[in-house]
Every structure is written in structure tokens, then in C-alpha cells.
């Protein structure tokens, strides 16, 4: 997708508040799918192994990012995709 188009969609998502709705939706889904619990378990193990004094947020974030993205349930990804598609179709002006 070209940069300009993706910027336009992002702007529309932000300005209409749809971005905030999707954020809350995503949070809810990730929570109820157990994703959040699993990820915090990974984080806790990492902190335990390295010692909490020796890890900063930056490092933890880098370590978790890969696992976090990989473990998002497909159903959640698909639902979000459908939601965003619906939004783009409703606001055909952005295309």
C-alpha cells in the first residue's frame, strides 16, 4: 500500500475516534484470549532469569515484541482486519 494512502487512512481513523474504538476492542480480545496473561508470564520469567535490576523497559520491550506479535490469535487478527476493512469501505472517500 502506498505511504500517502496509508497516512490518509490513519488520519481518518484517528480523527473519527475509530482508532480508539479499535484499540479498546483489541485490548478486550487480547485479554480474553489469554494473550496478555501468557505474555506477562514470559516477561516475568525473563525478569527472573536476568534479575530485575539488570533489565530496563527498552530491553524488555525488544525481547517481548517478537513473541507478542507472533502469539496474537489469528481470530483476533482477522476480526481487526474485517473491522478496518469495514471502516475503509464506509469512508470510501479516503481511497
Amino acid at each position: 500500500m502506498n505511504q500517502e494512502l496509508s497516512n490518509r487512512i490513519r488520519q481518518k481513523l484517528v480523527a473519527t475516534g475509530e482508532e480508539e474504538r479499535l484499540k479498546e476492542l483489541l485490548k478486550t480480545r487480547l485479554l480474553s484470549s489469554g494473550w496478555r496473561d501468557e505474555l506477562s508470564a514470559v516477561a516475568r520469567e525473563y525478569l527472573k532469569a536476568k534479575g530485575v535490576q539488570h533489565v530496563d523497559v527498552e530491553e524488555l520491550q525488544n525481547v517481548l515484541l517478537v513473541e507478542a506479535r507472533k502469539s496474537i490469535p489469528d481470530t483476533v487478527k482477522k476480526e481487526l482486519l474485517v473491522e478496518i476493512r469495514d471502516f475503509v469501505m464506509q469512508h470510501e472517500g479516503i481511497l
Partner: protein
Amino acid sequence: MADRPGGLCSHIAEQRDLVMESYKIVISFLISPESRENLEKRVQRFKCYTCESVGARCRLHACLQCCYVGCRLYNHSQEHHEESNHHVAISLSHGVLYCYLCAEYVHDYEFDIIAIKARQRLADFLDLNEFVRSVPLWNPKYGELELLSLQPKRMRVDSKTPIGLRGLYNLGNTCFMNCIIQCLTHTPFLREYFLSQQHKCIRSSPADCLVCEMCSIFQEFYSGKIFPHVPTRLLYLVWTHAQHLAGYEQQDAHEFFMATLNLVHKHASGTDIPYSGGCNCIIDVIFTGSLQSDVVCQSCHGVSTTIEPFWDISLDLGQQTAGDSRKPRSLDRKKLTDCLENFTRAEHLGSAAKIKCSKCNSYQESTKQLTFKKLPLVVSFHLKRFEHSKLLHKKVSTPIAFPQQLDLSPYMAKPEEQEEADPTSTSHDPSFSRPHTYSLFGVVIHQGTLQTGHYTAYIRQSPNGWFKCDDCEIKTATIEEVLNCEAYLLFYHKKYIEYAVE
């Protein structure tokens, strides 16, 4: 690490009031805007002022000592700190304070409260309470955090932990109650609600509150105890508040289920009216859906539509197909979807039941059709196996096949605008239509005859972990076993709230 957990570092504490003023501004303009105008303004400001990158991955931080916004992805926020000597920033993704001198995020109760309240106002104005309130997160308060630190023992719960399973004593024909308790304690949303203790009692005494009792049953189920629980208090409460269920005879599990929902709703909301409009007690949040009833006048084809709330769906099983015993059983086995089709079919009301049409202004023959207007988080189906007429009480043993995943979209009411829809529009591509998919998590079975029957339940403990609950006894079960049983009540939840990844 700041030495005081949950407190400000000395660099921020020094200029706390100033920081709080800018914090409030950033929260209300950039993080949780509270008006359309601020939302629109945010578009321009939500990017790195140096490299213009946008999006969550560039991790934007706003300086609280000037109005610079910089990314952490390319280190522009760090550069700003080095150039300007400003050291207090806020993460735009999470609204958390950051101190460059400590190189740490800093949490403070009063700051957190400002952010939480702003989020709530945003949710009100964008109408997001569906998410924000229906699945409230447990955010431990500071007192609770202290309590937690005094209780260092932790239990890790994953999909293999058997916690949550517990047998129930039969108190004399009370299997009708036990099977319902098993299904309720395995209803995902109820579990989240009760285990996070969100019930604020409004009854004169918690001992007389069914919600409080449900709460303690959940505590018992998740306590890790392995001997069966004795549900006397629940039985006593139901007896005192729903007198038609009192006594030591076998009762109907469905009736008990409905009475329990009704009593929990009553005790949680303080109202006597079932489904009182806009009730947001936990029962209504989870179980209330609505049916659209369309009555079509056969003379003028005018439609009059009414919407009725429901907590469960009772389905007719139709005619028993006896005498076809030569055919393999699986072929003539009726399906749940057949019953649903029947339930949502336009039904001719007959010439004896004429209804006054407001358009024709006279009594006309009409058809009536029910469809789902709004689906609840948990749909329960009651298969009408017990026929009661004046002369006859009998049990219908027709086998009904039911799926593990159920798509309810064919039974939904058509959206009103669909008739005028542009036929060339692509937005009706079926693969994009919102899924109304439900997953099975509980089944109640009635074995035996009407008079001497016994209730048991199958419940889903983890995505593929099924158990058979027969009063005190809990055994593992296979999904095949579940799908082949003679179901009486079926419990489905909305699929995307499934606990654990498939």
C-alpha cells in the same frame, strides 16, 4: 528503578505541580481527547517532530517541559533531552511518565488516576463502554497491592491447570441444580466478573444475596480444594426466593437456570422487573439478547415490528421420526440448525388469529417471523424435551445434532437499509460480513424418564478440555462423547472471547 515503588522519582517530585499541569494537557489533547475537535487536532500532532514517523512502533514520547514530540525508534526523544536538558516526558502510547535522568518509567497514583478518568470520559463520548465496562479489568488499588506483597505465594494458571473443576454433593435430587452450577461456573464472562469480585452488594444482608452466594461458589471452585463442594446455601436461597422450586423433588434444570438468572438479576440490580430496560447487571450484560418479531399483513404486506428481550431460546424439536429405524441413525438425525430454521421461519397465524393491521385499519390474516436482533455474549438453547399437556407429560428423546462452532448469522434480522443497497456495492461480500460465531462450552443432559431422571453436564474447562460432571464425580470426556449426547440445554459463548489460543 525508583526506590519507592509506585512513587515519583526526586527529579519529577521537585516540580510535581508543573509536571502535573502539562501531564493533564497532554492526556486530554493527545492521549484521551474528550471532544471531536481535539480528536481531529491530534492528527497533526501525533508524529515525531524531527522525522515525522507515525504509528505505534515508533513509540512517541511528548516532552512535558516544552511541546516537543519525539520518537524512540530513531532516538529523537533522547536527542531532545540531551539538547534541551528537559528530562520529563510521557509515553503517548501508554500515558506513563518517563524520567530521562533515571532512564525509567515512573508510576504515581495521582497521575494514573488522571489518565484513567480521562480514558473513561473518552469512552463515554465515543460510546466505547461496551468494551471498557463490560469487561472491566482488575486494576489493583494501592491497598490491594500491599496485600499482594504480603501474600508471596502465587499460582500460575494455564490451560493444563485443573483448577476450576469441583464436584458437587447431591443434596437429595439436586442434580438439576448441580448441572446448572457447573455450566455457570464455566461461563467465561461470569468467571471474570466473579473472580475479580466486582459485585457491590446492595442487599440488606450478603447472606440473603444470591450474587454474593455466586461469588462464594466461584471462590470455592477456584480455591484448589479437591473434595466436593456442598451447595446448601445456594439451594436455600433459591428455595426462599423462588418458592416454586422448593422441596426435595426432582426439578427442571431449565426452570432452575431461569430462576437463578432472574434472582441474580434482581439481587444485583434491586429491581423486580426482569430485563428492565437498560439494566446493566452482570446477567443482562452476558445473557440478554433481543428478538425481532415481524408481523406481516397478508392484505397490504405492511410490516409491524416489535423487539423483545430474551435470556435464552426455547426450541421445538418437531415430530419424532419413529419407524425409520432401518435408516442409519446419523442420516435422519435432526440438527440444531434445523430447529433454529424452524424457529426463525415465517409462520402463518391462520384465519382464526386475525390481527388488527394499522394500515388497513381492519383485522387481517398475517404471518409472524422471529429473528435475532441482538445476540448476547452467551446464548443458551433449551431443547423442549418435556411436553406437558393437560393429559400427558412425556419426554421427547429425538436425537439432536449440535455443532461445536455455531454460526448464527443466517438467523439474524436483516439490517433495515439492505433493501435500498446498491447492488454493485462490494460491501456485501459475505467474507467480510461480521461473524456471529459461537463456541460450545456447556451441555446439560437429562437421562432416564420424566419421573426418574438424572441430570449431568459436560463442561469445557480449556479450549479442548472437556469434562463430564455427575454430581460428586468429574471425569475427562472426549468431544465426540459430548457431541453425541442427548442434550437438553446447550450453552454457547461468542467465539472471540475463547480463553486461550486455538
